[in-house]
Protein backbone atom coordinates (compact mmCIF):
# COMPACT_ATOMS: atom_id res chain seq x y z
CA UNK A 1 0.00 0.00 0.00
CA UNK A 2 1.26 3.42 -0.89
CA UNK A 3 -0.24 6.81 -0.11
CA UNK A 4 0.92 9.73 -2.20
CA UNK A 5 -0.21 13.13 -0.96
CA UNK A 6 -0.38 16.05 -3.36
CA UNK A 7 1.14 18.96 -1.47
CA UNK A 8 1.63 21.41 -4.29
CA UNK A 9 -0.71 24.35 -4.08
CA UNK A 10 -3.70 24.92 -1.87
CA UNK A 11 -5.81 21.86 -2.68
CA UNK A 12 -4.46 18.72 -1.06
CA UNK A 13 -5.53 15.27 -2.15
CA UNK A 14 -4.28 11.71 -1.69
CA UNK A 15 -3.73 8.95 -4.22
CA UNK A 16 -3.78 5.52 -2.56
CA UNK A 17 -2.29 2.53 -4.39
CA UNK A 18 -3.47 -0.85 -3.14
CA UNK A 19 -2.22 -4.35 -3.91
CA UNK A 20 -4.72 -7.18 -4.19
CA UNK A 21 -6.12 -7.99 -0.77
CA UNK A 22 -5.33 -4.60 0.78
CA UNK A 23 -8.11 -2.38 2.06
CA UNK A 24 -8.50 1.33 2.57
CA UNK A 25 -11.39 3.19 4.19
CA UNK A 26 -12.55 6.73 3.61
CA UNK A 27 -15.41 9.10 4.29
CA UNK A 28 -17.89 8.10 1.61
CA UNK A 29 -17.95 10.81 -1.01
CA UNK A 30 -14.22 11.45 -0.68
CA UNK A 31 -13.38 9.32 -3.70
CA UNK A 32 -12.90 11.37 -6.85
CA UNK A 33 -11.01 9.02 -9.18
CA UNK A 34 -10.22 5.32 -9.28
CA UNK A 35 -8.79 2.64 -11.52
CA UNK A 36 -11.58 0.49 -13.01
CA UNK A 37 -10.70 -2.57 -10.89
CA UNK A 38 -11.33 -0.80 -7.59
CA UNK A 39 -14.24 -2.31 -5.70
CA UNK A 40 -16.10 0.26 -3.64
CA UNK A 41 -18.50 -0.74 -0.92
CA UNK A 42 -20.43 1.83 1.03
CA UNK A 43 -21.25 1.08 4.64
CA UNK A 44 -22.91 2.90 7.44
CA UNK A 45 -20.83 4.14 10.34
CA UNK A 46 -20.72 1.80 13.25
CA UNK A 47 -20.01 2.03 16.94
CA UNK A 48 -17.53 -0.58 18.04
CA UNK A 49 -19.32 -3.93 18.34
CA UNK A 50 -22.54 -2.55 16.94
CA UNK A 51 -24.53 -4.83 14.68
CA UNK A 52 -25.80 -3.97 11.23
CA UNK A 53 -29.33 -3.01 12.30
CA UNK A 54 -28.10 -0.79 15.12
CA UNK A 55 -25.69 0.83 12.73
CA UNK A 56 -28.42 1.53 10.21
CA UNK A 57 -30.65 3.09 12.90
CA UNK A 58 -27.93 5.32 14.30
CA UNK A 59 -26.84 6.13 10.80
CA UNK A 60 -30.30 7.30 9.83
CA UNK A 61 -30.44 9.45 12.96
CA UNK A 62 -27.09 10.91 12.02
CA UNK A 63 -28.34 11.59 8.52
CA UNK A 64 -31.24 13.62 9.85
CA UNK A 65 -28.78 15.48 12.05
CA UNK A 66 -27.16 16.56 8.82
CA UNK A 67 -24.08 14.41 9.05
CA UNK A 68 -22.94 12.16 6.29
CA UNK A 69 -22.45 8.89 8.08
CA UNK A 70 -21.24 6.57 5.37
CA UNK A 71 -17.80 5.11 5.05
CA UNK A 72 -16.50 3.57 1.86
CA UNK A 73 -14.08 0.65 1.73
CA UNK A 74 -11.83 0.13 -1.28
CA UNK A 75 -10.01 -2.98 -2.44
CA UNK A 76 -8.91 -4.20 -5.89
CA UNK A 77 -11.38 -6.75 -7.25
CA UNK A 78 -8.81 -8.64 -9.28
CA UNK A 79 -5.22 -9.68 -8.74
CA UNK A 80 -3.86 -6.38 -10.01
CA UNK A 81 -2.90 -3.31 -8.06
CA UNK A 82 -5.37 -0.45 -8.17
CA UNK A 83 -5.52 3.17 -7.21
CA UNK A 84 -8.14 5.40 -5.59
CA UNK A 85 -7.93 9.18 -5.23
CA UNK A 86 -9.42 10.87 -2.15
CA UNK A 87 -10.25 14.56 -1.88
CA UNK A 88 -11.84 16.62 0.89
CA UNK A 89 -14.69 19.11 0.43
CA UNK A 90 -12.69 22.20 1.28
CA UNK A 91 -9.51 23.66 0.04
CA UNK A 92 -6.61 22.87 2.30
CA UNK A 93 -3.85 20.45 3.13
CA UNK A 94 -4.07 16.71 3.49
CA UNK A 95 -1.73 15.01 5.93
CA UNK A 96 -1.00 11.47 7.01
CA UNK A 97 -0.40 10.67 10.68
CA UNK A 98 0.65 7.38 12.25
CA UNK A 99 -1.83 5.60 14.47
CA UNK A 100 -0.22 3.41 17.12
CA UNK A 101 0.86 3.54 19.77
CA UNK A 102 -0.93 6.90 19.79
CA UNK A 103 -4.69 6.94 19.57
CA UNK A 104 -6.04 9.93 17.69
CA UNK A 105 -9.34 11.70 18.24
CA UNK A 106 -10.22 13.36 14.98
CA UNK A 107 -12.93 15.98 14.51
CA UNK A 108 -15.90 15.52 12.20
CA UNK A 109 -15.05 17.09 8.92
CA UNK A 110 -11.33 16.45 9.28
CA UNK A 111 -11.38 12.68 8.82
CA UNK A 112 -10.51 11.78 5.23
CA UNK A 113 -9.44 8.13 5.30
CA UNK A 114 -7.42 5.41 7.01
CA UNK A 115 -5.76 2.09 6.23
CA UNK A 116 -7.88 -1.02 6.77
CA UNK A 117 -5.88 -1.96 9.87
CA UNK A 118 -6.94 1.14 11.81
CA UNK A 119 -9.90 0.66 14.15
CA UNK A 120 -12.49 3.39 13.77
CA UNK A 121 -15.12 4.37 16.28
CA UNK A 122 -17.20 6.87 14.40
CA UNK A 123 -19.55 7.62 17.26
CA UNK A 124 -16.96 8.28 19.85
CA UNK A 125 -18.69 9.53 22.95
CA UNK A 126 -15.56 10.13 25.00
CA UNK A 127 -15.86 13.77 24.11
CA UNK A 128 -19.06 14.15 26.12
CA UNK A 129 -18.80 17.90 26.03
CA UNK A 130 -18.71 17.52 22.26
CA UNK A 131 -22.26 18.76 22.01
CA UNK A 132 -20.88 22.26 22.36
CA UNK A 133 -18.33 21.82 19.66
CA UNK A 134 -18.64 23.99 16.61
CA UNK A 135 -17.42 21.04 14.60
CA UNK A 136 -20.64 19.25 15.27
CA UNK A 137 -21.32 16.05 17.10
CA UNK A 138 -19.05 13.77 15.18
CA UNK A 139 -15.66 12.77 16.47
CA UNK A 140 -13.82 9.73 15.19
CA UNK A 141 -11.45 7.72 17.36
CA UNK A 142 -8.66 6.05 15.37
CA UNK A 143 -6.79 3.27 17.15
CA UNK A 144 -4.73 0.21 16.28
CA UNK A 145 -1.93 0.56 13.79
CA UNK A 146 -1.79 2.19 10.42
CA UNK A 147 -2.18 5.48 8.62
CA UNK A 148 -4.78 8.12 9.30
CA UNK A 149 -5.42 10.75 6.63
CA UNK A 150 -6.74 14.09 7.86
CA UNK A 151 -7.69 17.20 5.95
CA UNK A 152 -7.64 20.76 7.17
CA UNK A 153 -9.15 24.00 5.97
CA UNK A 154 -5.96 25.84 5.16
CA UNK A 155 -2.61 24.63 6.29
CA UNK A 156 -2.13 22.03 8.97
CA UNK A 157 0.24 22.65 11.88
CA UNK A 158 1.26 20.21 14.56
CA UNK A 159 1.44 21.62 18.08
CA UNK A 160 3.32 19.74 20.79
CA UNK A 161 1.49 20.38 24.03
CA UNK A 162 3.44 20.45 27.26
CA UNK A 163 1.68 23.01 29.39
CA UNK A 164 -1.35 25.03 28.48
CA UNK A 165 -2.68 26.09 25.14
CA UNK A 166 -6.04 27.50 24.12
CA UNK A 167 -7.34 26.56 20.68
CA UNK A 168 -10.41 27.95 18.97
CA UNK A 169 -12.72 25.04 18.27
CA UNK A 170 -13.10 25.88 14.60
CA UNK A 171 -9.36 25.30 14.15
CA UNK A 172 -9.16 21.88 15.77
CA UNK A 173 -8.37 18.90 13.54
CA UNK A 174 -7.26 16.13 15.88
CA UNK A 175 -5.49 15.43 19.15
CA UNK A 176 -3.85 12.45 20.84
CA UNK A 177 -5.88 10.66 23.46
CA UNK A 178 -4.54 11.36 26.92
CA UNK A 179 -4.52 15.15 26.69
CA UNK A 180 -6.75 16.86 29.19
CA UNK A 181 -9.02 19.59 27.98
CA UNK A 182 -11.84 21.89 28.97
CA UNK A 183 -14.28 23.62 26.68
CA UNK A 184 -15.28 27.19 27.36
CA UNK A 185 -16.17 30.45 25.73
CA UNK A 186 -13.31 32.69 24.79
CA UNK A 187 -13.30 36.09 26.37
CA UNK A 188 -14.38 34.84 29.73
CA UNK A 189 -18.05 35.56 29.26
CA UNK A 190 -20.86 35.18 26.75
CA UNK A 191 -21.28 38.85 25.96
CA UNK A 192 -17.59 39.43 25.64
CA UNK A 193 -17.26 36.47 23.31
CA UNK A 194 -20.18 37.52 21.18
CA UNK A 195 -18.74 40.99 20.76
CA UNK A 196 -15.25 39.83 20.00
CA UNK A 197 -16.63 37.20 17.65
CA UNK A 198 -14.86 34.31 19.27
CA UNK A 199 -16.73 31.08 19.77
CA UNK A 200 -15.82 28.07 21.79
CA UNK A 201 -12.27 27.33 22.74
CA UNK A 202 -10.60 24.22 24.07
CA UNK A 203 -7.89 24.57 26.66
CA UNK A 204 -5.53 21.63 26.44
CA UNK A 205 -3.10 20.62 29.13
CA UNK A 206 -0.84 17.69 29.74
CA UNK A 207 1.35 16.08 27.14
CA UNK A 208 0.42 15.21 23.63
CA UNK A 209 -0.03 16.49 20.12
CA UNK A 210 -2.72 18.63 18.58
CA UNK A 211 -3.22 19.14 14.86
CA UNK A 212 -4.70 22.52 14.00
CA UNK A 213 -5.86 24.18 10.79
CA UNK A 214 -5.00 27.74 9.91
CA UNK A 215 -8.54 28.72 8.91
CA UNK A 216 -12.01 28.03 10.25
CA UNK A 217 -14.51 26.83 7.63
CA UNK A 218 -17.51 28.14 9.54
CA UNK A 219 -16.23 31.67 9.07
CA UNK A 220 -16.08 31.15 5.32
CA UNK A 221 -19.54 29.58 5.59
CA UNK A 222 -20.86 32.70 7.29
CA UNK A 223 -19.46 35.04 4.66
CA UNK A 224 -20.41 32.85 1.70
CA UNK A 225 -23.81 31.80 3.05
CA UNK A 226 -24.85 35.43 3.41
CA UNK A 227 -24.24 35.96 -0.31
CA UNK A 228 -26.26 32.95 -1.47
CA UNK A 229 -30.01 32.81 -2.11
CA UNK A 230 -32.13 31.58 0.81
CA UNK A 231 -32.94 27.91 1.11
CA UNK A 232 -36.27 26.11 1.29
CA UNK A 233 -35.67 24.18 4.50
Amino acid at each position, binding site marked *: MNVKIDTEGAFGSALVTLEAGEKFVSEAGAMYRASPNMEISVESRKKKNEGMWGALKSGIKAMFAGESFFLSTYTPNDSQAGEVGLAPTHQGEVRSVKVGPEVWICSGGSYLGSSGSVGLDTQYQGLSKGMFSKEGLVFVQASGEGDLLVNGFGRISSVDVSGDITI*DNGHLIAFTEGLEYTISKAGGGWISSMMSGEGLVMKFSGNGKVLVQSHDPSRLGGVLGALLPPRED
Partner: protein
Amino acid sequence: MRFDIKGNPSYGEVDVDLGPNETILIEPGAMSRMSSNLDSSFQRQGGFFSAIFRKMFGGENFFLGKYEHPDGGKLTFAPSIPGHVEHRQLTNNSLNIMAGGFLACTPGVNIKAKFGGLKALFSGEGAFLLEASGSGDLFFNSFGGVVEKQINGEFIVDTGHVVAFDPSLDYKITGMGSFKSTMLSGEGMVMRFSGNGKLYLQTRNVSSIASWLTPRLG
Protein backbone atom coordinates in the same frame (compact mmCIF):
# COMPACT_ATOMS: atom_id res chain seq x y z
CA MET B 1 5.65 42.98 19.52
CA ARG B 2 7.19 40.42 17.23
CA PHE B 3 5.25 38.84 14.42
CA ASP B 4 5.71 36.17 11.78
CA ILE B 5 3.45 35.65 8.78
CA LYS B 6 3.27 31.99 7.83
CA GLY B 7 1.47 30.17 5.06
CA ASN B 8 1.50 32.77 2.28
CA PRO B 9 0.40 32.77 -0.49
CA SER B 10 -2.47 30.36 0.05
CA TYR B 11 -3.13 30.27 3.78
CA GLY B 12 -1.56 33.26 5.44
CA GLU B 13 -1.77 33.30 9.23
CA VAL B 14 0.07 35.50 11.72
CA ASP B 15 1.99 34.40 14.83
CA VAL B 16 2.36 37.28 17.26
CA ASP B 17 4.53 37.51 20.36
CA LEU B 18 3.11 40.21 22.61
CA GLY B 19 5.35 41.90 25.13
CA PRO B 20 4.07 42.87 28.60
CA ASN B 21 0.94 45.04 28.26
CA GLU B 22 1.24 45.22 24.50
CA THR B 23 -2.14 45.12 22.78
CA ILE B 24 -3.31 43.83 19.44
CA LEU B 25 -6.76 44.39 17.94
CA ILE B 26 -8.03 41.76 15.57
CA GLU B 27 -11.04 41.15 13.36
CA PRO B 28 -13.81 39.31 15.26
CA GLY B 29 -13.38 35.55 15.18
CA ALA B 30 -9.86 35.70 13.83
CA MET B 31 -8.07 34.18 16.83
CA SER B 32 -7.12 30.56 16.19
CA ARG B 33 -4.86 29.70 19.12
CA MET B 34 -3.10 31.50 21.95
CA SER B 35 -1.26 31.01 25.20
CA SER B 36 -3.90 30.47 27.82
CA ASN B 37 -2.95 33.44 29.97
CA LEU B 38 -3.87 36.15 27.47
CA ASP B 39 -6.84 38.30 28.40
CA SER B 40 -9.32 38.65 25.63
CA SER B 41 -11.99 41.31 25.52
CA PHE B 42 -13.52 43.56 22.96
CA GLN B 43 -13.03 47.16 21.99
CA ARG B 44 -15.36 49.37 20.09
CA GLN B 45 -13.67 51.42 17.42
CA GLY B 46 -14.27 55.14 17.28
CA GLY B 47 -17.24 57.15 18.49
CA PHE B 48 -20.84 55.93 18.42
CA PHE B 49 -21.89 57.38 15.08
CA SER B 50 -18.74 56.45 13.24
CA ALA B 51 -19.05 52.95 14.61
CA ILE B 52 -22.60 52.55 13.33
CA PHE B 53 -21.58 53.98 9.98
CA ARG B 54 -18.69 51.57 9.74
CA LYS B 55 -20.85 48.60 10.62
CA MET B 56 -23.46 49.47 8.06
CA PHE B 57 -21.12 50.37 5.29
CA GLY B 58 -17.61 49.38 6.15
CA GLY B 59 -18.18 45.67 6.21
CA GLU B 60 -16.06 45.36 9.31
CA ASN B 61 -17.66 44.84 12.67
CA PHE B 62 -17.33 47.84 14.85
CA PHE B 63 -16.05 45.74 17.67
CA LEU B 64 -12.59 44.33 17.48
CA GLY B 65 -11.17 41.55 19.60
CA LYS B 66 -8.56 42.89 21.99
CA TYR B 67 -5.74 40.74 23.37
CA GLU B 68 -3.17 41.67 25.98
CA HIS B 69 -1.70 40.62 29.32
CA PRO B 70 0.70 42.14 31.86
CA ASP B 71 3.05 39.23 31.19
CA GLY B 72 2.59 39.27 27.43
CA GLY B 73 1.79 36.10 25.48
CA LYS B 74 1.54 34.40 22.12
CA LEU B 75 -1.35 34.54 19.70
CA THR B 76 -2.06 33.21 16.22
CA PHE B 77 -4.78 34.67 14.05
CA ALA B 78 -6.03 34.22 10.49
CA PRO B 79 -8.62 35.87 8.24
CA SER B 80 -12.00 34.30 7.49
CA ILE B 81 -11.12 33.88 3.82
CA PRO B 82 -7.94 31.98 2.93
CA GLY B 83 -5.30 33.81 0.98
CA HIS B 84 -2.38 36.11 1.32
CA VAL B 85 -1.76 38.14 4.49
CA GLU B 86 0.16 41.39 4.13
CA HIS B 87 1.75 43.63 6.76
CA ARG B 88 2.24 47.37 6.50
CA GLN B 89 4.09 49.51 8.99
CA LEU B 90 2.24 52.81 9.10
CA THR B 91 4.37 55.79 10.09
CA ASN B 92 1.94 58.68 10.25
CA ASN B 93 0.49 57.80 6.86
CA SER B 94 -2.48 55.85 5.57
CA LEU B 95 -3.68 53.07 3.31
CA ASN B 96 -7.12 52.46 1.82
CA ILE B 97 -8.40 48.91 2.33
CA MET B 98 -11.53 47.38 0.83
CA ALA B 99 -14.22 46.03 3.12
CA GLY B 100 -13.35 42.56 4.27
CA GLY B 101 -9.62 43.05 3.83
CA PHE B 102 -8.87 44.42 7.28
CA LEU B 103 -7.38 41.81 9.60
CA ALA B 104 -5.62 43.39 12.58
CA CYS B 105 -3.74 46.42 13.90
CA THR B 106 -2.02 47.85 16.93
CA PRO B 107 -3.82 50.63 18.88
CA GLY B 108 -1.92 53.48 17.17
CA VAL B 109 -3.71 52.74 13.90
CA ASN B 110 -7.07 54.41 13.40
CA ILE B 111 -9.71 52.71 11.22
CA LYS B 112 -12.34 54.88 9.55
CA ALA B 113 -14.95 54.13 6.90
CA LYS B 114 -15.01 56.01 3.63
CA PHE B 115 -18.27 56.16 1.81
CA GLY B 116 -17.74 54.86 -1.71
CA GLY B 117 -20.69 56.59 -3.28
CA LEU B 118 -24.12 55.35 -4.33
CA LYS B 119 -22.82 53.34 -7.26
CA ALA B 120 -20.69 51.39 -4.86
CA LEU B 121 -23.83 50.17 -3.10
CA PHE B 122 -24.77 48.19 -6.20
CA SER B 123 -21.38 46.72 -6.65
CA GLY B 124 -22.09 43.70 -4.53
CA GLU B 125 -18.83 44.05 -2.68
CA GLY B 126 -20.14 46.78 -0.48
CA ALA B 127 -17.24 48.44 -2.26
CA PHE B 128 -16.72 50.52 0.77
CA LEU B 129 -13.35 51.52 1.82
CA LEU B 130 -11.70 51.66 5.14
CA GLU B 131 -8.95 54.12 5.69
CA ALA B 132 -6.24 52.90 8.05
CA SER B 133 -4.12 55.80 9.30
CA GLY B 134 -1.69 56.65 12.07
CA SER B 135 1.34 54.78 13.27
CA GLY B 136 1.66 51.14 14.05
CA ASP B 137 1.28 47.70 12.54
CA LEU B 138 -1.47 46.98 10.06
CA PHE B 139 -2.38 43.51 8.76
CA PHE B 140 -4.70 43.03 5.78
CA ASN B 141 -5.60 40.03 3.65
CA SER B 142 -6.64 39.05 0.15
CA PHE B 143 -8.67 36.12 -1.08
CA GLY B 144 -6.22 33.90 -2.87
CA GLY B 145 -3.17 35.28 -4.61
CA VAL B 146 -2.17 38.92 -4.40
CA VAL B 147 -0.74 40.87 -7.34
CA GLU B 148 0.91 44.22 -6.68
CA LYS B 149 0.85 46.85 -9.41
CA GLN B 150 2.55 50.21 -9.49
CA ILE B 151 0.07 52.46 -11.28
CA ASN B 152 1.28 55.37 -13.41
CA GLY B 153 -1.70 56.61 -15.35
CA GLU B 154 -5.00 54.78 -15.49
CA PHE B 155 -6.16 51.28 -14.71
CA ILE B 156 -9.52 49.50 -14.50
CA VAL B 157 -10.27 46.84 -11.88
CA ASP B 158 -13.42 44.83 -11.15
CA THR B 159 -14.32 46.03 -7.64
CA GLY B 160 -14.22 42.53 -6.21
CA HIS B 161 -10.54 42.27 -7.10
CA VAL B 162 -9.31 45.36 -5.25
CA VAL B 163 -7.62 44.72 -1.89
CA ALA B 164 -5.89 47.97 -0.97
CA PHE B 165 -4.33 51.04 -2.54
CA ASP B 166 -2.23 54.08 -1.69
CA PRO B 167 -4.27 57.22 -0.94
CA SER B 168 -2.37 58.95 -3.76
CA LEU B 169 -4.53 57.07 -6.28
CA ASP B 170 -7.84 58.59 -7.33
CA TYR B 171 -10.70 56.31 -8.28
CA LYS B 172 -14.13 56.38 -9.87
CA ILE B 173 -16.70 53.62 -9.63
CA THR B 174 -18.53 52.92 -12.87
CA GLY B 175 -20.22 50.18 -14.80
CA MET B 176 -18.80 48.75 -17.97
CA GLY B 177 -19.92 51.42 -20.42
CA SER B 178 -23.68 51.93 -20.63
CA PHE B 179 -26.04 50.46 -18.06
CA LYS B 180 -27.39 47.93 -20.56
CA SER B 181 -23.98 46.70 -21.48
CA THR B 182 -23.13 46.41 -17.78
CA MET B 183 -26.08 44.10 -17.22
CA LEU B 184 -25.40 42.04 -20.31
CA SER B 185 -21.67 41.82 -20.02
CA GLY B 186 -21.84 39.89 -16.78
CA GLU B 187 -19.22 42.14 -15.35
CA GLY B 188 -19.95 43.96 -12.15
CA MET B 189 -18.94 47.43 -11.21
CA VAL B 190 -15.41 48.49 -11.89
CA MET B 191 -13.08 50.96 -10.25
CA ARG B 192 -11.17 53.21 -12.59
CA PHE B 193 -7.93 54.28 -10.91
CA SER B 194 -5.80 57.21 -11.94
CA GLY B 195 -2.62 58.75 -10.60
CA ASN B 196 0.55 57.27 -9.20
CA GLY B 197 0.63 54.76 -6.45
CA LYS B 198 0.62 51.16 -5.39
CA LEU B 199 -2.40 48.95 -5.92
CA TYR B 200 -2.89 45.53 -4.29
CA LEU B 201 -5.12 43.18 -6.31
CA GLN B 202 -6.51 39.74 -5.55
CA THR B 203 -7.13 37.03 -8.08
CA ARG B 204 -10.39 35.76 -6.52
CA ASN B 205 -13.29 37.14 -4.45
CA VAL B 206 -16.15 35.69 -2.44
CA SER B 207 -19.04 37.14 -4.44
CA SER B 208 -17.71 35.47 -7.59
CA ILE B 209 -17.69 32.17 -5.71
CA ALA B 210 -21.29 32.86 -4.70
CA SER B 211 -22.31 33.60 -8.33
CA TRP B 212 -20.62 30.43 -9.52
CA LEU B 213 -22.13 28.27 -6.80
CA THR B 214 -25.70 29.62 -7.00
CA PRO B 215 -26.89 27.60 -10.04
CA ARG B 216 -25.31 24.48 -8.50
CA LEU B 217 -27.15 24.65 -5.19
CA GLY B 218 -29.58 21.91 -4.21
